[in-house]
């Protein structure tokens, strides 16, 4: 911050505003640190490099889905089709790369675009046919669940002949360092998504639509077009998540995916994005996803009975959202 600009008032951005905007993220980050510290003290197996990469690795799929769906939720919408949609994309990846034997790069692009296509259909149903997002994506969730089974013949598609495919997730791009590629992919797409959300027209309109859809439309912005764009864009992340999960497993599992959408939405919400739209951030979503995977990891490492793990996760979501409400009250 340049101090002279500070003084001019109109042109300078007050430091207070910056701090306030980041506060929810800071809080979420603080919670993550607290959780980390607790587990580190509670279990000798937690605070190890291997376990950190394990946590990051297990964040990749939910994290990818959550980043895409952050855009949708900021517009005030919701996407329930991301979980089973991911399974369908994984299957499509198998179809492109294994069954059709397309070159790897082509198959990957085709899979991501297929995810975008699903999002596009969601967007058209929501923006043009005016079907409420909850219903439109619920329908897509069922369609994708069924299609994944139909296309795959209800059997997993194995990438045994495509060792390069699994490397996308499990390989180590950095030689000699045990750091899974999947995590690098997550970081890269998070940065891209963050830039798109904060620096581009798509991002601005995403916030504007969520803040006040009618005012945005009356400002001459074709809200229908941009909503379709947002859902289609979020769809690309469904495709990517499909690649990431199938590359990790070495197979496309058609029956998986149900329930991932709720975990992704939980990550977004813990990260401070409002379900009523208008605000949210990629960094927050990533922290939210990390909180979920750290809890899952830490609780298991502490040998907490599985019955209790979801109880605790549920409580964390409540606390996270309540903190957000407290913050809003004071704003």
């Amino acid at each position, binding site marked *: 911050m340049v101090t002279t600009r500070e003084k001019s008032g*109109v*042109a300078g951005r007050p430091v207070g505003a910056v701090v306030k905007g980041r506060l929810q993220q800071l809080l979420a980050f603080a919670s993550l640190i607290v959780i980390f510290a607790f587990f580190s003290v509670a279990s000798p197996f937690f605070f190890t490099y291997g376990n950190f990469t394990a946590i990051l690795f297990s964040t990749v799929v939910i994290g990818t889905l959550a980043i895409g769906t952050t855009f949708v939720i900021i517009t005030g919408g919701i996407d329930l089709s991301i979980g089973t949609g991911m399974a369908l994309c994984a299957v499509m990846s198998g179809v492109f790369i294994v069954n059709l034997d397309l070159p790897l790069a082509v198959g990957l692009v085709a899979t991501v675009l297929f995810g975008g296509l699903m999002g596009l259909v969601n967007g058209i149903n929501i923006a043009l046919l005016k079907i409420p997002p909850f219903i439109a994506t619920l329908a897509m969730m069922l369609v994708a669940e069924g299609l994944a089974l139909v296309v795959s013949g209800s059997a997993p598609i194995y990438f045994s002949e495509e060792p390069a495919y699994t490397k996308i997730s499990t390989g180590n791009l950095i030689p000699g360092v045990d750091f899974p590629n999947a995590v690098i992919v997550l970081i890269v797409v998070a940065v891209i998504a963050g830039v798109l959300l904060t620096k581009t027209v798509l991002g601005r309109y995403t*916030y*504007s639509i969520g803040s006040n859809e*009618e005012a945005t439309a*009356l*400002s001459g*912005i074709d809200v229908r077009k941009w909503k379709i764009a947002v859902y289609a864009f979020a769809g690309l992340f469904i495709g990517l998540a499909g690649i990431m999960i199938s590359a990790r497993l070495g197979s496309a599992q058609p029956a998986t995916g149900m329930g991932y959408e709720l975990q992704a939405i939980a990550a977004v919400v813990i990260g401070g994005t409002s379900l009523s739209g208008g605000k949210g951030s990629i960094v927050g979503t990533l922290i939210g996803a990390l909180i979920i995977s750290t809890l899952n990891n830490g609780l298991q490492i502490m040998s907490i009975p599985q019955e209790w793990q979801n109880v605790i996760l549920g409580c964390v979501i409540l606390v996270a959202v309540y903190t957000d409400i407290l913050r809003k009250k004071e704003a």
Partner: protein
Amino acid sequence: MLTETATPRTLPLLEVEGVDKSFPGVRALSDMRLELRAGEVLALVGENGAGKSTLMKLLSGIHTPDTGTFTLDGEPLTIAGPKHATELGISIIHQEFNLVPHLTVAQNVFIGREPRRARLLLDERRLVRDARELIGRLHLPLDPNAVVGDLTVANQQMVEIAKALSYDPKVLIMDEPTAALNDAEVATLHELIRRFVRPETGVIYISHRMEEIRRIADRVTVIRDGQYVDTVDVAATSTREIIAMMVGRTLADHAGPQGVRADREVLLEVTGLSTKALLKDVTFDLRAGEILGFAGLMGAGRTETARAIVGADPVDGGVLTLRGSRIRIGHPADAVRHGIGYLSEDRKRYGLLLDKDVKANVTLGALARRFTTAGFVHDRAARAAASEYVGSLRIKTPSVDQTTKFLSGGNQQKVVIAKWLARDCDILIFDEPTRGIDVGAKEEIYQLLNELAEQGKSIIMISSELPEVLRMSHRVVVMSEGRVTRILDAAEASQETIMHYATLRPDENVEDAKELGLDPVETGAAEDEEGKA
């Protein structure tokens, strides 16, 4: 007069003394005073942001004061919440209605204290009976079984009043009760207030409309910047004096519209515009650099005309011609592309991103066209442009990063204007440009409209305030029941002529109305004569 029937002046009904209230970073009220006498109507005036709504919230128990005391009938008061306030005998009617649109009139009036049978079952019959009895006592034109969402705004206001009076309050506080009412409805409301005021009750009447205050109030309390200014007898004080107290300075007298010329070229022609809902064959033209006023009663179709032109609502028929060539508008985005911007009467709902900053709002419409390269936003350019408009439109804001919900109504309106200027719109449609804006800021908006017209922008100004229409408009389109009943020149426009055409009921025979409209000089002149007589 009411003042004569009032109890001795030494006995205040409600007294507020030495009240301070701060919010984080803002001192909303400081040493606030107020004295409502039994049997009077006390007007409370002040510019937006002067502290009226904070005071209301303290009186309704939504907030608690930092210091200071409330006294009702000589007894000190602590107000725990809205429900407690009504129990104590203070009923408040807020500017924004607290009604459930899907419920009936009776259900709304008795919401939260519905008569029951056997503790659990609702006694609908008694509910309706009680409501009917109450409505009858208040002489209100309401059906207890009507669904509130289907009522006109005026009747919804009546439901609010019925609800407030059903508690038998000692003190009734009304915040801008006439903002959405036409003259006849205002008269009905005032009658109701007069019936309510008895030697043991009192009314605090918050309003921007000076004529109304003169008609209904006995005394007026002026507040400014969270502080008490003075309380004066309405009869002994001129409107200009009151306004001067509110704004802390005297306002210049104003004349009629500026820059009226007959030789302007036609910019936009609207021909035969119709909608399924209301509009029938709306035809008029808009000239370059002109301020075209739109007058009419509530529901005449003025806002609907604007929304139909900009593509916000579906159109059934009609042709738009811009600079001689026909244009089609199916969506607000089309309108904006042709340089037509609409500024809604409901800024908060249709005009602003309230939780976003000034910069985001000013640049919203022009973002893609002016402030981006390959989709990436130029933050510095956007900031510079926003700062420029903040300067040129005299928007009072600490910075372009201020969230717009914290700006006053007038400054919010200027932010919306800036948005359209940033988008290079030549035609600006203002729907109630000064609604909810205090007197001082109104003047600024008027000045701004005149400046814009001078710069060659064409302005359609929809307004329910006749003085505003007369003062600003080069010509006046008068509407009634979805049709244009007359287009008046500045010279022939007067309160009387406008009201005549605004209340004209187009007969079954459409031709009759058209004939009237097409016969300007005689009808207008005759009407003028009648008005004067």
